[in-house]
């Protein structure tokens, strides 16, 4: 049974994506019988390339993938290199979970309200400092070059890369490496950058690729923060798919294929950059500089990550304030009156979506945990370890849903599901979420599982315990903390899903996220505030359990409480 787990995982993940991609590829070349397109042609491509602003759309999508990733990765590495174990460092580490659980859309709304010309920051300095009696006419949010979009993505990708790095670090004992380098006279940050990063990067390479892919093809954040004339490629594709002029679906399909190409080229460029950096890095290592000017770097590492975290939290606080605001005119820093009206109006309609969201998230996460554990346990028993960090191992396919843009295959998948005669049901949505939850759960849990000291199992086996009993009575309880953390990550990922819920549920399955997005179309910031807060608080529950439960259960076993 266990041996089938990796196969099952790969089939579950790869099958739907390939099927969905096929159904995007055919219409891209004119084949869509329902619209009378029965012969292959290049017409959709000609029409696609005639779309105004296409080159700019592609450029912004491509650039945002690379810039977002480079900045997030640099901030995370600088921060880790500058960590000294102070209280601030521990506090920042603790912020990782809530920041990671904050849904992308909620963070984007918060940022938009923070930095818009009529937003929170402008209100704080007006009119006294700025002299603005009315909001200045400045193009900040939705700027044509996507800088705000990239900033919004960086805020959300930093915690993800940080969590992945924190999970990977203990594998190669960085403290000893740094101690060794320091004994040779390297300054602490230089030591870390020179001896830890080269070992760390291969382990977080796939998450980095996932960030690139995500940033090139993101829809919800780009809708809120991205450029508009033209929007990013993914947003254009969504608009074409939803155009009442149904022939636009062919263009949309061609666009989806183009998106695939844009993401792939961003990945390829990054891959080339990796080689370049490695070459330059080797020279830098070999030169043997012991490190100078560490202080500015250290400040940058901590300062930038602090800035990113504060931005997210202050933005969210602004939304919270909006959700209880009466009339709140510019340049008032605070609303003229507070009212519970927006919450009271939303409360009766909250229960259903909250329950559905929880059901889907828990369902998808439990399945993902079961499959992940089965695959990992199989790995342990067969003694075969996957080639970690190598691009071509079988389990790399696990990352396919994170690398292939959602917009490129989800619409096709809906057609496939329809052809199979499946009707929109809750299980279909859970299955759709599993595509994205499973990779993240696997990503979060695998390192802890593989790192688990084999001597515990050997000891138990030598006492006559069966392998099954070792799994259930030794390994699982001792891995409770990472297990719960992986579960919390899974819940957070599921709660944030918009497109899969909407498309596979035919819009019938109302979750907090689908409600929030459809209400966002109404532009009422007070209502958006209410739903964004609810959306942000749900995954937090998962993380609170992940942190709290081990402490409660293992109150007498300090080492098993987990580090998060």
């Amino acid at each position, binding site marked *: 049974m266990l041996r089938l787990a990796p196969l099952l995982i790969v089939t579950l993940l790869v099958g739907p994506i390939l099927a969905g991609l096929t159904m995007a590829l055919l219409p891209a070349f004119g084949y869509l019988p329902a619209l009378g397109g029965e012969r292959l042609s290049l017409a959709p491509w000609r029409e696609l390339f005639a779309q105004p602003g296409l080159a700019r759309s592609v450029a912004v999508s491509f650039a945002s993938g690379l810039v977002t990733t480079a900045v997030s990765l640099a901030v995370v590495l600088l921060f880790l290199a500058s960590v000294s174990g102070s209280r601030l460092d521990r506090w920042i580490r603790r912020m990782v979970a809530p920041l990671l659980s904050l849904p992308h859309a909620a963070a984007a709304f918060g940022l938009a309200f923070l930095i818009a010309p009529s937003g929170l920051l402008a209100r704080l300095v007006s009119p006294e400092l700025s002299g603005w009696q009315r909001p200045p*006419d400045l193009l900040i949010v939705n700027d044509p070059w996507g800088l705000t979009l990239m900033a919004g993505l960086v805020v959300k990708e930093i915690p993800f890369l940080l969590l992945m790095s924190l999970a990977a670090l203990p594998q190669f004992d960085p403290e000893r490496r740094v101690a060794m380098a320091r004994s040779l006279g390297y300054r602490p940050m230089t030591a870390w950058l020179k001896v830890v990063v080269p070992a760390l990067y291969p382990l977080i390479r796939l998450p980095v690729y996932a960030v690139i892919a995500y940033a090139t093809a993101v829809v919800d954040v780009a809708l809120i923060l991205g450029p508009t*004339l033209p929007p990013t490629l993914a947003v254009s594709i969504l608009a074409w798919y*939803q155009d009442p002029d149904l022939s636009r679906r062919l263009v949309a399909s061609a666009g989806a294929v183009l998106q695939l190409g844009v993401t792939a080229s961003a990945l390829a460029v990054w891959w080339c950059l990796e080689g370049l950096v490695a070459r330059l890095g080797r020279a830098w290592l070999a030169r043997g500089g012991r490190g100078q000017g560490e202080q500015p770097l250290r400040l940058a590492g901590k300062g930038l990550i602090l800035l990113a975290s504060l931005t997210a939290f202050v933005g969210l606080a602004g939304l919270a304030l909006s959700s209880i605001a009466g009339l709140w005119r510019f340049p008032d820093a605070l609303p003229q009156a507070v009212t519970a009206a927006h919450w009271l109006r939303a409360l009766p309609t909250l229960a259903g979506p909250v329950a559905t969201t929880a059901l889907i998230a828990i369902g998808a996460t439990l399945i993902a945990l079961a499959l992940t554990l089965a695959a990992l346990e199989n790995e342990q028993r067969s003694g075969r370890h996957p080639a970690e960090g190598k691009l071509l191992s079988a389990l790399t396919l696990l990352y396919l849903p994170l690398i292939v843009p959602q917009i490129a295959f989800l619409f096709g998948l809906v057609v496939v599901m329809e052809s199979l005669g499946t009707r929109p049901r809750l299980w279909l949505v859970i299955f759709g979420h599993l595509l994205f939850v499973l990779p993240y759960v696997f990503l979060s849990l695998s390192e802890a599982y593989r790192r688990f000291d084999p001597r515990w199992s050997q000891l138990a086996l030598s006492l006559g315990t069966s392998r099954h009993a070792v799994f259930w009575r030794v390994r699982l309880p001792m891995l409770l903390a990472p297990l719960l953390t992986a579960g919390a990550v899974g819940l957070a990922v599921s709660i944030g899903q918009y497109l899969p819920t909407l498309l596979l549920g035919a819009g019938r399955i109302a979750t907090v996220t689908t409600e929030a997005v459809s209400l966002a179309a109404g532009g009422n910031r*007070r209502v958006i505030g209410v739903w964004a807060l609810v959306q942000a608080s749900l995954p937090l529950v998962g993380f609170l359990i992940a942190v709290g439960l081990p402490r409660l259960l293992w109150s007498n076993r300090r080492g098993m409480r987990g580090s998060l």
Partner: protein
Amino acid sequence: MSLRLLRVLPLAAMLAHPLHAASALQEWESVLDEARGQTVYWHAWAGDTRINDYLDWVKRRVRDEHEVELVHVKIDDTGSAVSRVLAERSAGNHDDGSVDLVWLNGENFAAMKENDLLYGPFAEQLPNFSLTHPEHNPEVVTDFTLPTEGYESPWGKAQITFYYDAEALDEEPPRNMAQLLAWAEINPGRFTYPRIPDFLGSTFLKQALIALADDTDVLYEPVVQSDFEAVTAPLWEYLDALHPHLWRRGRQFPANGPELRRLMGDGELSLAFTFNPAEPAAAVADFELPESTRSYVLEGGTLGNVHFVAIPFNSPRRAGAMVVANFLLSPEAQARKQDLAVWGDPTVLDVTRLDAETRSLFEQESDNPALLPPEALAETLPEPHPSWMTALQDAWQARYVGR
């Protein structure tokens, strides 16, 4: 006009003839029987809590009255519902669709009709449909100049209404397109319109085109029958002059009407417009706009239209959908929808022809300064042919996107 009249005449005759009326009633009884116990999935834009609350009320009423379970499938764009039905048809799903009822406007109606995605005709079978008196109100049987032919049932009315903050504006707001340009030059960055292809933004283009074009008759025929370049030249000239004075210098546009309203609330804009005449007053009540908000329509009238509900061709619960559509046309539902405290969407019923008691349901106290009296909305310009909207959208995109 006469053509449209001819189309509704059989219905009038049917209702006038007692024997036919009796059989129609019987038929409706069988629809009601069939609808009992059905669950109707209604795909409707859900960006406004007031609309959502009204739909919630409809849900409770049809459950109590007709034992029909109504589910509001909340969407942020009607196009996604159209898209859904199309995906089902591509997959060969011809009788078990997931959409039973959809809230449509002309553009989506034209697209669905053209692709045979609609079920019908059904509107004439709805007993309450006669209350709209289509023989006197042809707008309830035409959508963007296209005859609805019973493939959609009218639900509410819309008309472009401008609004402004009287305290923030020193001078009188502009009353026509030329004044609007002059006003924008003095007040740079204080006016804009939603970006194309948003529905309200596209409507603004049509409104401007009607005001600026030399010959407006051609707008009511398919666009291929006229010289698009020549007809629209004054519009582009106007927009080229206007854009540098718009919000963000016309380098960016808000996404839709609700965002326009938010920018008004934030004080970024001083003048905006909406498709729902009651929206400014409702937004004042919800703290979104200041109490000094006032509204008006342009000289010579503004574009107005009727919005509808329709049933996709593959809905397996047509009877239930028809019962809901009929309930939406009931005086009770229409009066509640028109109530400013609920939604404020004008009724499609011919109130003048209702009996006195029913008519009293529709009387509103109009002491709200942000709300226009009904007679201010008397001058309604009809919508151009839908092909104009698409052509304008494409031309706008080609001119202003990616520059």
